């Protein structure tokens, strides 16, 4: 299932003193099966764009095509349930939406709300708890007794329990410690590779973009200013610095090494690529100390 934006504008609180431009003339396609990263300066419209992916916001002009449904400014709020089921949305700090007595009940809430029987929903909840790596002893605990990282897993399991095709993530690792962040990113990568989910990720972590995404969308002032592969986007460090965006740590360090005299073609994006490209320039062939 593809999602396509055609000439989409979105104005916040139109006709009030607080009116503001959220999105301007967005033309963009997100293909089913892709891993898309959306990057941009704070306030560039990333979260607003996300909320159009499952019709939480409707464009004030233009159309958003979500599979076989077309969302226009005139679309009725009824019958949007199938879209919400197909496009699972994980907001910032999703753990603040937990409310049930136990972990499994919280995960089962969505499917039950969509008409699934209690037994089946419970079974689905167990599968999802397992999928996101929640240890069994937590399943009957109150979600509020868990650590921040585990609470977030519960919230994500609740979204996955709807069996969406899309998993839309708004800075999903914010507030977690580095280990928790790494585990979270590994989980999404697994869901993408093994379960075939289409991932749309809003992030400030350029290393995550380089490591996982196959498409990058760069936003500024409510507009999409560039799209491309990570390699295309990160090829020009100066452009990203001008846009107040960072580059992956690898790309930055590779530039430092280039100034020192090392050579890279192409410029490495990930730590593994950098080390692989460096080793022949540091160790004599066949004469390495580890051989």
């Amino acid at each position, binding site marked *: 299932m593809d999602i396509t934006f055609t000439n989409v504008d979105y104005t*916040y*609180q139109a006709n009030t003193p*607080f009116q*503001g431009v959220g999105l301007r003339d967005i033309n963009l396609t997100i293909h089913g099966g892709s891993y898309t990263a959306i990057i941009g*300066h*704070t*306030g560039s419209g*990333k*979260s607003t764009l996300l909320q159009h992916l499952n019709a939480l916001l409707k464009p004030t002009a233009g159309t958003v095509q979500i599979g076989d449904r077309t969302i226009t400014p005139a679309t009725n709020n009824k019958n949007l349930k199938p879209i919400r089921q197909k496009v699972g949305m994980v907001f*910032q*700090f999703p753990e603040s939406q937990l409310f049930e007595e136990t972990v499994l009940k919280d995960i089962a809430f969505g499917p039950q709300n969509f008409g699934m029987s209690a037994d089946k929903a419970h079974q689905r909840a167990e599968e999802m708890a397992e999928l996101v790596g929640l240890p069994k002893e937590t399943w009957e605990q109150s979600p509020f007794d868990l*650590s*921040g*990282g585990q609470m977030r897993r519960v919230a994500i399991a609740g979204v996955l329990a709807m069996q969406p095709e899309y998993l839309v993530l708004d*800075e999903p690792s*914010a*507030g*977690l*410690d*580095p*280990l*928790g962040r*790494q585990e979270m990113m590994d989980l999404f990568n697994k869901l993408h590779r093994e379960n075939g989910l289409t991932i749309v990720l809003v992030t*400030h972590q*350029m290393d995550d973009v380089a490591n996982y995404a196959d498409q990058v969308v760069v936003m500024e002032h409510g507009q999409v200013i560039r799209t491309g592969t990570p390699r295309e986007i990160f090829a020009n460090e100066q452009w990203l610095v001008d846009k*107040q*965006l*960072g580059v992956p*740590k*690898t790309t930055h*360090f590779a530039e*430092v*090494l280039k*100034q*020192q*005299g*090392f050579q890279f073609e192409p410029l490495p994006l990930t*730590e593994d690529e*950098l*080390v692989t490209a*460096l*080793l022949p*320039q*540091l*160790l*004599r062939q066949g004469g*390495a*100390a*580890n*051989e």
Partner: protein
Amino acid sequence: MTKAIEVQNLSFRYSEEAKRNAIQDMSFTIENDEWVAIIGHNGSGKSTLAKSIDGLLPLEKGTIIVNGIELSEANLWQVRDQIGMVFQNPDNQFVGATVEDDVAFGLENRGVPRAEMVQRVQDALQRVNMTAFATREPAHLSGGQKQRVALAGIIAVRPQILILDEATSMLDPKGRQDVLATIRQLKAETHMTVLSITHDIDEAASADRILVIDDGQLKQQGTPAEIFRYGSRLIKMGLDVPYTAKVAEDLSTAGVALPSQFLDESELAQTLWTLHSQM
């Protein structure tokens, strides 16, 4: 000279039923005008510690002295007057209908005359680069913008001690650098003490000293260079591993002879170039 913060034998348990203490017999001192970063993984007791210092949690066991004032129920407000605290999720601390109202709130509370208040609000918003948003509604800002506004509200009050509880976590990398630069400048002007709870390597590197907390206990302390020497073990301490340490470890594993101390970017680049030249 009076210390900014003295914590002596502090222990705290959230409830009778809790399996263990969130803070276990912790003691340390923070000097005036010092910048101390506290690191530790989620659940290590960092935020509990910050809340205890600000009197947001009841003091059960131990002593907390802020600018020479011993924290007790009687002088709670006197202690809080010394401290400005910025939390991770600013939604929890917004009160104003507009950004400028929100930033002015702390000043109104302290009875600052209107003319001075207007000037201080403008100054604070300018410092965090949010002047253009003065009349906007805080609820409609992005996560990073909210964190800037929350910081402005504290800057306007000019506390002697600034406590940042993962207060830059929602900012983009450039935004984080800007905010850290703002704090550095403010610190140079006012000599305030900064206590920052963080997982961010840049924020930790800005500190004079790093305290490592685990299991509610103070496990290590040292300068950033001393702490960064732990390399890949840092991730267990709740901090990112500095990028150069990761690359150096990868290269060492592959057989490249590198020294064991922490090397920053330019040091590692030079060391590698020397090795390359000896090939």
